[in-house]
């Protein structure tokens, strides 16, 4: 798998911490592998929206990658509840269902961006950089130890 220049937190140079939310174990493992190629760290995982809310409180991640179609509580509702409690939360919806009303609903309820499955690592990388904004920094391999 392609390796990307590390994305770090600009405040302390530490790896970006991710909460990965998807009802599919396979999808969670796949996303975890991708964010590790960005130099990121998986802080927690959840298989449904309810667990995502408690895991957010427990792990306080920098980025949430949130599926939409999940049992018990869907991703858009979970995103809304997380953002209500944590307005600073950066939630990126990751779903195979990419039609406009879904995207608009997610953005209106507090998600910062949307990525359609199957996830292309180079697309997710650019989205994460954009969503982190000034709170993220690209660290090249040569400058990693600096």
């Amino acid at each position: 798998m392609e390796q990307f220049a590390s994305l770090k937190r600009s405040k302390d140079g530490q790896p970006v911490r991710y909460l990965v939310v998807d009802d599919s174990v396979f999808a969670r493992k796949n996303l975890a592998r991708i964010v590790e190629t960005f130099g990121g760290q998986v802080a927690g995982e959840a298989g449904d929206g309810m667990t995502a809310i408690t895991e957010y409180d427990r792990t306080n991640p920098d980025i949430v990658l949130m599926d939409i179609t999940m049992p018990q509580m869907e991703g858009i509702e979970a995103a809304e509840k997380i953002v209500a409690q944590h307005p600073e939360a950066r939630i990126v919806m990751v779903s195979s269902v990419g039609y406009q009303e879904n995207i608009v609903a997610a953005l209106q309820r507090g998600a910062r961006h949307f990525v359609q499955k199957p996830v292309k690592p180079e697309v997710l990388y650019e989205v994460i950089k954009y969503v982190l904004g000034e709170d993220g920094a690209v660290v090249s391999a040569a400058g990693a130890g600096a």
Partner: protein
Amino acid sequence: MKMELIQPFINAADAVLAQGLQSPMSIGNLSMEQEAYRRKGVAALVAITGDIEGRIVFDLDPETAVRVAGHFAGGELPESDELVRETVCELANQVTGNAVTALNDQGFHFRVHPPVLHTSDHGPTSSEDTEALVICCETASGSLFMNIALRYNVELPGERAAAAGE
């Protein structure tokens, strides 16, 4: 079942499989199925409700499922049968999600339900309004079968427009 319903699934399977397997896919046999569905191996079912209703079953023989799961896991051998089943479910989810996204652009509205593992050897018999089309997707890892049984729950957009013009 009209081709306008089927083509988005073929396009979505092509896109999802080509990326996951890093090789092209081709369409083999297409057949209509009126008999009760018979599972071939590892199968996942995705139900959709809304303007179009029905279900799509993705079915792979066990050896193909292991090879496909390995490719989707980045070339690693799957750690367990559970992960193979999970991969087939996620594959079904991604193909269906991409297909209904395209159908939504044509004016149809849906709800896609989470994929479930299809464990019984037989499924329900297709009926006149939910005839099933079986599409064989041939890949370098083996054949994947999409069994699609959908029916319109509303008038087609063109029919709606024609009715409005009467």
